[in-house]
């Protein structure tokens, strides 16, 4: 066997694993009392309690980080209704589509290393998609990252996909990304010619996950572990499938009559381990990630700018699609914020970074019924 062909790849991987010069956070205090001396403890706690009540969530976690005051993390309510377990500030939860920010960073790191270009074509990068995905030779890496490929979005657009989870969650859970693509994406028409419209699709990130694995020769969890989790000491963050019994459970009012059902098995089947929404993390780890990313510690300035640049298309409202490459642009009362929302049947998570004051806002609740963004405007002033 000729190993010489593998050396460039191995060298690239070693370079990719180079430790980052990021301050290592100290272990996080877990009890709510740890933040009781914070100057705005009572204000934040009251707001969080009201938010939890109004959103009818069993539990909620909030992290506020602003200049001039220490980081505050609070948690109110229950992580698990069956066992009446209190939710903790350091509780681990499913972050949903916030995962896309991590995956986009990993892809952009490959681009930064010169191994990929944003204009590379899907059919070239993943040859087996040619002939299976319409116009795969026209879809670029940028299109996948920015949701401008026109690909269908099975979790939100296919009742077949949704029913499969509801009917037999373990069976759906056992499907590989290749099987998902084969069943729900290949052969399906695009919504528009690639690059001419914007339409959010989880399938873009299924493909990006495949691409990362193919380019690095490692499973997705190793890529994210080596390039982001370990260098930033995100010790409570992972993407691989593990026992989920200690995670905050997700709930939904399935029948609209006020009773909450534990739907964690659906959320798990839908996304655990996958590049579109599989990360498990904590509020503190998410804030550390945001600080590092937007502080320029994960990507060079040029690639961070590329990531944050607006996707501009005539078909978007006012020409601005309010999305970059794996990052959402939120027009808040305090100006533009960057981050991502993560929503599923039983969870709702938000991670936002405010460039004007380098503030970080993390809000999580274990009821997937949407969230009220006004809380953010009030607290991040």
């Amino acid at each position: 066997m000729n190993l010489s062909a593998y050396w460039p790849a191995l060298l690239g991987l070693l370079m990719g694993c180079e430790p980052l010069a990021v301050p290592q956070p100290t272990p996080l205090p877990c009890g709510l009392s740890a933040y009781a001396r914070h100057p705005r403890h009572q204000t934040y706690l009251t707001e969080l309690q009201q938010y939890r009540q109004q959103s009818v969530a069993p539990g909620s976690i909030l992290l506020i980080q602003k200049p001039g005051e220490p980081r505050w993390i609070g948690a109110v309510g229950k992580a698990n209704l069956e066992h009446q377990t209190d939710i903790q500030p350091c509780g681990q939860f499913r972050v949903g589509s916030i995962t896309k920010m991590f995956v986009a960073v990993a892809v952009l790191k490959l681009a930064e290393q010169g191994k990929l270009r944003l204009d590379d074509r899907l059919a070239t990068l993943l040859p087996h998609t040619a002939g299976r995905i319409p116009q795969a030779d026209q879809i670029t890496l940028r299109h996948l990252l920015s949701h401008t490929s026109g690909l269908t979005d099975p979790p939100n657009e296919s009742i077949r996909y949704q029913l499969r989870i509801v009917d037999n969650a373990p069976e759906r859970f056992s499907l590989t990304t290749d099987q998902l693509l084969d069943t729900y994406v290949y052969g399906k028409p695009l919504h528009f010619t690639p690059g001419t419209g914007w339409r959010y699709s989880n399938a873009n990130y299924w493909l990006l996950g495949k691409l990362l694995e193919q380019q690095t020769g490692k499973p997705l969890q190793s890529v994210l572990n080596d390039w982001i989790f370990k260098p930033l000491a995100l010790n409570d963050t992972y993407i691989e499938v593990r026992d989920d019994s200690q995670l905050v459970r997700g709930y939904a009012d399935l029948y609209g009559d006020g009773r909450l059902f534990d739907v964690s098995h659906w959320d798990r089947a839908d996304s655990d381990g996958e590049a579109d929404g599989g990360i498990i993390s904590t509020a503190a780890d998410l804030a550390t990630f945001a600080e590092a990313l937007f502080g320029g510690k994960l990507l060079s300035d040029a690639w961070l700018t590329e990531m944050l640049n607006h996707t501009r298309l005539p078909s978007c409202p006012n020409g601005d699609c309010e999305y970059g490459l794996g990052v959402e642009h939120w027009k808040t009362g305090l100006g533009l914020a960057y981050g991502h929302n993560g929503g599923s049947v039983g969870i709702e998570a938000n991670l936002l970074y405010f460039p004007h004051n380098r503030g970080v806002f993390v809000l999580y609740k274990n009821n997937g019924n949407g969230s009220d963004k006004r809380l953010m405007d009030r607290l991040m002033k």
Partner: protein
Amino acid sequence: MTASRSSLQIYAGLIGFCLITVGLGRYLDSQGVANLRQFGWDSVGLVALGTVGVWLAPRTGFADLLDPRVTNWQRLGRPLAIGFLFALADVLVFVGVIHPEPVTALLFFMQPFPYSILLYGSGALYVDVLYRLLPIPVLMWLVGRYALTNPRHTGLFWLLAGLSSLVEPLEQLITDSPALIAYSFASGYLMNLLQAYFFRKYGFLAGLMIRLGHYALWHVGFGLWVELRL
């Protein structure tokens, strides 16, 4: 023409049916039956409010609930068969196109038998009160009486029937291929419109029977079939 005493008595019986559903649902829940869908007190309240519709219907050009000119085939048999046909089409599309894999658990539109009879029976009544029995006669009475000087105005009925029939299919629009979305909307709209027409021509029970026929197969029969196969 006014609502007969027996029409009001029959409707009172339907309200009683809803009360039994609430009671049994609460009892089963207390016995630990999982994932049980409840029929709420607010829903019973809405159904009770439907008495206004029963009273107004004959005054606004609808056949009375027990109109003596309507045969039982027109009031019960034929609409029930029509509802079955809509349900049969839905079941075939579901098992043939939407979910060809074997159904291995009660889905979100199924409940344990025989509770499903009560829940979906009451549910059918609730939906028909919400979309037809209350809004159409009340609006016909108000608009027809004060704006058109004719509370039995046929044109107004068709306008209200056409608009109210849009609500449910739009609320329940599925997300999938354009063909499935079109099927879901068209079948839902047609069934609602037929219900409004049967309500007008043969009385409230006739319109309700279409939905009961649909629910009997789609919710109750299909659910029972799944339970028997588990």
